[in-house]
Structures are given as C-alpha cells and as structure tokens.
C-alpha cells in the first residue's frame, strides 16, 4: 500500500519529523525514569531503608556502554563518509558491546543477590532491580534497532540514501539517550543509597 509522502521541505524547521518524534518519546521516557527515581526518594525518606554498596561490575558495564556509544557514533561517521568496512565492523562491535552490557548487568544482579539483596524484601533492593531492569529493557529496544541496522548492512548493497541515513541517526540518538540515562541512573543510585 502506498503511504502518503508528507512534504517536509516547506516547513521552516530543518528537523526531520521522525527525529523530532523520537525526542518527544525521549522526553516521556525521561518522565518515566524521573517518576521511578522520585518514588525512590520519597520511599527512602520514609525510613526503614536497607543500605548496600553497588557492585563494582556496574561501573565496568558503564564503561562498556560508553564505549559502545562511541563506536556507534564512529560507525555512523564512517557510513556517511563512504568507509564501508569500518562502518560495518564498528556497527557489529557496537552491537556486541550492547550485548556485553546486558550480560554485565546480569552479573551485577547475581552478585547483589549473592550478598542477600533480593527483589523481595527491603524496598531499597526492589527499587534497584526494577530501575535497572526497566533500563535494561530500554537497552533491548536499542539493540533490536541496531540488529535491524546490522542485517541491512550485510544484506543490502552499501549505498548512502536519505532513508538509511535517517534510520541510522534515529538509532544512534536513541542509543546515546539510553547511554546517558544509565549514567544518570548510576550516579543517582550511587549518591542516594
């Protein structure tokens, strides 16, 4: 079926509508995590709050995620600058780093569990699992988008089209967003134990 091609050229703003829609979606995800962290503060101030150290593995996973953002960004630069090999390899590397992040998060959860911080029990632990778990779900979404990117990179002929560029930019911006979101959550969880 044909889709109406909406004209974007005559509008004064240069932002692509889909990119703008993504930013709006990011604003509402920010509100969602804002609600989680506010609930955390409200509940914490009510007392009966178990304090515990964050596992060190969360800091390792943070580095991995930051690197993946960097590699994905470089992959995008390579894509638009006609560097096919570098684009493809860095895209795969970013995808694998994303998977690594999830594995590290899982290891972080198991190490917490091993010192007795359970999902059930004191809400301080429950909050940590729910917040990091919801973030991990958002990472999965980003990985799904990246996987589509990888499939397209290896099944279709390399060609810089407007459509592929926009889709890549959307994936990239979303990935930067979940990356920054994690940095915020980590700092929040670290400071407000």
């Amino acid at each position, binding site marked *: *079926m*044909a*889709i*109406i*091609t*909406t*004209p*974007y*050229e*005559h*509008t004064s*703003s240069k*932002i692509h*509508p*889909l990119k*703008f*829609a993504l930013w*709006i*979606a990011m*604003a*509402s*995800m920010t*509100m*969602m*995590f*804002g*609600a*989680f962290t506010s*609930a955390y503060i*409200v*509940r914490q101030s*009510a007392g*009966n709050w178990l304090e515990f150290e964050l596992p060190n593995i969360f800091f390792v996973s943070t580095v991995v995620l930051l690197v993946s953002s960097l590699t994905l960004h470089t992959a995008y630069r390579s894509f638009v600058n006609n560097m096919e090999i570098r684009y493809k390899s860095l895209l795969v590397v970013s995808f694998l780093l994303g998977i690594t992040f999830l594995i590290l998060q899982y290891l972080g959860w198991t190490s917490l569990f091993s010192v007795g911080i359970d*999902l*059930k*029990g*004191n*809400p301080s632990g*429950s*909050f940590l699992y*729910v917040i990091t778990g*919801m973030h991990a779900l958002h990472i999965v979404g980003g990985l799904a988008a990246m996987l589509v990117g990888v499939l397209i990179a290896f099944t279709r002929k390399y060609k810089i089209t407007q459509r592929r560029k926009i889709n890549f930019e959307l994936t990239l911006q979303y990935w930067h967003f979940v990356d920054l979101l994690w940095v915020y959550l980590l700092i929040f969880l670290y400071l407000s134990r």
Partner: protein
Amino acid sequence: MAEVTKYNEEVLIEEQGFDDQFHEHHHGDKYQSSFIFKYIFSMDHKIIARQFLITGIFWALIGAAMSIIFRLQLGFPDESIAWLKPFLGRWVQINAETGIGTLDSQFYYALVTMHGTIIVFFVLTAGLSGTFSNLLIPLQLGARDMASPFLNMLSYWFFFLAGIVMFYSLFLSTGPFSGGWTAYPPLSALPQASSGSGAGMTLWLVSLTLFVVSVLLGGMNYITTVLNLRTRGMSLWRMPLTIWAFFVTAIIALLSFPVLASGFFLLIADRGLGTSFYLSDIFVAGQALEYVGGSPILFQHLFWFLGHPEVYIIILPAMGIVSEVLSVQARKPIFGYKAMVYSILAIAFLSFIVWAHHMFMAGVNPFISNFFVIFTLIIAVPSAVKVFNWITTLWGGNIRLNSPMLFAIGFVSLFISGGLTGIFLGNSAIDIQLHDTYFVVAHFHIVMGVAAMFGMFAGIYHWFPKMFGTFMNETLGKIHFWLTLIGAYAIFWPMHYIGMAGVPRRYYRFDGFDAFGQFTVMNEFITIAAIIVFAAQVLFVVNFFWSINNGKKMKTKNPWGATTLEWTTPIEAGHGNWPGKIPTVHRWAYDYGKDGKDFISQIIPLSEEEKAEEQHH
C-alpha cells in the same frame, strides 16, 4: 472603501498554494480501493478519527448503562431487578422465596470502578482528544496527514486492543476490577484482597498499559505534526484555538502518562514479583502477609501526578472545540485570542503542581498541603480568563442557536457551575468535611464529565458534515441538548446537598444510617433523571448513525461560513485532503465580521489596507 475582490477558493489555492508534487492516486495506489485498508487498517487521519469516535461512542454507551444500573441500586435499593438477570447473570441474586432480585454488592463496586475507568480513559481521553486531534490537526493546519500515519494507525489499534482486554474482563467469573478507578493498593496490589483484585485487576493493568502506549503514540504524532507540518503562512499565532488545545493536551499527556506507567510497573512488581513498594503490615482473613516497608501513599503520588493532568487532558480539547464553535456560530472573532492561548499554557503548567489536592486526607503533611491549596486556587485565574472570553465572544454576536452552539454554551454554563465547587474542594480545611462525599462526585461530574461531553457533542454536531458529508438532524439535536442540560443539572445539583450532609460516595446502600434517611427521595429523583438523560443519549446515538446515510446532504464546502482550512477541502476529501496544492495561509483564524464581510477565510490574501495596518503594528 475597500475594493471588492471576489475570490474563488479553488483558483486561489491553485495560484497561491504550495505544490508538494502530490497526486492523489500515484503509482497505482491500491490503498483507496481495498475496503480493509480504506476503512479498517487505515492510515488516513480522517478515517482514524472516525474509528476513535465510533469506538468512543460504543464505550460511552457501556459506561453510561453501568451508571444506570448502579443508580437503580442507589435510588431503589429495595425494588426487584430480576428483569436484569438476562444481562447480568449471577450478579443479580434472586431470593428464592420472594422472587426479589438484588444486585450483588461486589458487582456494584465493579460497576462503579468500570464506569470511571471507561468514561475517563476510553471515552473522554481516546474518544474526545483521539477523535478531534486526528480529524482537525492535519485539516486545520493544512497538512496532508499526520507526521507518521503508521504510528497514528498503531495508536488506534493499541486503543482497540486495550478495549478488547477491558471488555473481556467484564465477563470474568470473578468479575472485573472493583477497587475504584484510581486502583489504590492494597485492593489493587493483592490478588486475594477482593474477587475483582485477581484476574480482573490483571486485565485492567494490561488494558491500561496498552492504553498508555496508544496515548503516547498519538501524542507524539500530534506534537510533531503541529510543530513540523504546518502549511506555508500558518505561524503558531495563526493556529485556531482547537489546535492550541490539542497541542498542549498532547504535551501534558506525554509528560504525565509515563509516570502512571511507572506506578503501574511498581504495582505489577508488587502483584507478580513479591516486592513491597506499596504494601506493608497487612492482614488478609486473619493471616499476616509477608510484605513490609511499603507505602500505599507512594502509589497515590504517582497516580495523581498523572491523575490531575489527566483532567486537563480531558477538558482542554473540549475548551478548544468550544472556543472554535462559539466564534464560528456567533460570527465574531474569539475575544482575547492570545489570552486564551496563555491561559491554556498556564493551566497546563499548573496541572503538574497540584496533584496532592486529591490526597489532603490521605496523611499528607498539612503544611505541604498549603502549597497545593494555593496552586489549586490559582488555577481559577486562567479558567476565569477563559470563561470571561467565551462570554464576551458571545456578547453582541450574531448568534445561531443550532445544536453545536447550544452545546458550546451549555459547556460554558457547566464549566462555571462545576468550577466554582472546585474552589471549595481545593481548600484542605473544607475538604475535611467534603472529601469522599457526593459533593466530590457532583463537582467532577459537572466540571469534567458532563462539561467535556458537551464539548464533544458541540464538536460532533459542528464537524459532522466534515466527517460524513451530511448534517445531523437539528430537531433531535435540540431535544438532545435540552434533555441533557436540564437532566445533568437535575442529577448532579442535588448531589451537592447530599455531599455537604456527609453522605459518602461508593456506598452500596444507605438504609443502615439513620442520618441519611432524609435523602431517600432525592436519590430516587436523581436516578429517574439519570434514566431520562440516558434515553436522551440513545436518541443522540440514533441520530448520529441515521444521519450518516440519511441526513441532509452537504451542498457547499463551507456550510457554517468558517474561516479555517478544513472547510476548503472537497466535501468528499480523499487521503491527502486537498486534491491539488496545499492552501497558503495569509491571516489568523478569526476574521469574522471584518471590513463589512461576514467572514474572511484564512487563505484569502491581505487587502492593501490590512497590509498597511500590519506594517503599522
């Protein structure tokens, strides 16, 4: 004297319009020909608007019918309702000796809960803003369609799915969720708390999570379309107030619904994963539960952080529609256009910092309550600005008292009556007496329930020709209006008195309380009024569906003589709205009665005098 220039609209659009290389049936478009893709999985915003509207009407009938059943219980608790047995099955218990059928008390709570959920979310959120945002945003802005027609289609289908899940929950053997539409824990968090808290609540959560997805997809689209796809010349300050209202509504929805989702996720964790976010020290059937350290107030904070903006998500689109209808049908420019926009923005901002006024009696620190009291009362200021401007728009107007106009004026009446009682309830001290009584029920039903319905009716009667190419029957429309207006006041006005006397809401029957015996007749009166109003709505639905095919045909493109762009499209507009070029906009949306002309469409270029005047400013 201004020279008299006659414009032909088609010629004007052809000459001045923006050519975006649009061809209605380009590259062998099968899209319009197949029934499934034209009417069911449609990506045309006009069809999606109709889908939202008709689904909304379906839910409105169910929600209203539920209210009739529980009103029968409240008005006539001793009458037999055995005749409802075929519909309600085992929820009506028939006494074997006397043959008297009574409503199951658990099911009474389920009815109240479902009535609230359905009307608030499915009718007044999806049915109202879903319908008119979809219909009017592209049409009034001069866009071919939404920014992403595909996401727009998904938005409807997520709503549809949410509806299916909720509908299914009505038929569970344990009944639908019965803990109130606000879903406070522990009733919502413990599956064993009541019969509706099990599977019924699970389906409620699934349904509303799907609904949040639908709202977010729709809202993203509305905001993007308004900011990116306006036609040439359509600056923000030339947009009709309808668009301003839908735009701000979408922003509120996008910022508040995710918070509700967060609250739901924590609730789901409490229900399914054994966490204790909202639960602490609970005994069920004499058994102590394991949950420790949670706080039910936390859920209230998260819920009302959505819940209060939600009432503005409901009322702002109605306000936008009413502003437009009043101006068009009074043949006058809207009074104080910019003040209207700023008051919408002010209301939107304030809506985020007043949520705790729903929790004055829930153990919130009284000193903190003071801030919420002040911000709540400040909302009266922009609201009063709007009311003043509506009335001054009517002042000296050439008023056509047709159905859309009647409903728009009715909206203003209801908004004033209902808004004034908000000042009582916004005071935390008076709330000690009034909280959880029928006074609250009366307040929010008038100011947001009935008023928003009136906004919706005004919009339906006004844009029905745009949607279906025919007019609704005027006589039936007027009967519908008068029955509904008088009936709605007859239902909710007495409730204020009942509430001031302290009669609590959500009670199954009152004959156990001597003090409330005096209200028996009043409750009977309310129930009878409710039945009459319900009959009037059935009349509306009949009129609606009958008029689609049999109504008076629309002969000209612009039957109301309105200035906005939706009336420059062909009567049967295809996907893409304008067959050739998109019109260019030269002026704001409210040039009525200017320079001796009845109205000047937005696409008419400025005259020399107007240009000179514009330079002057």
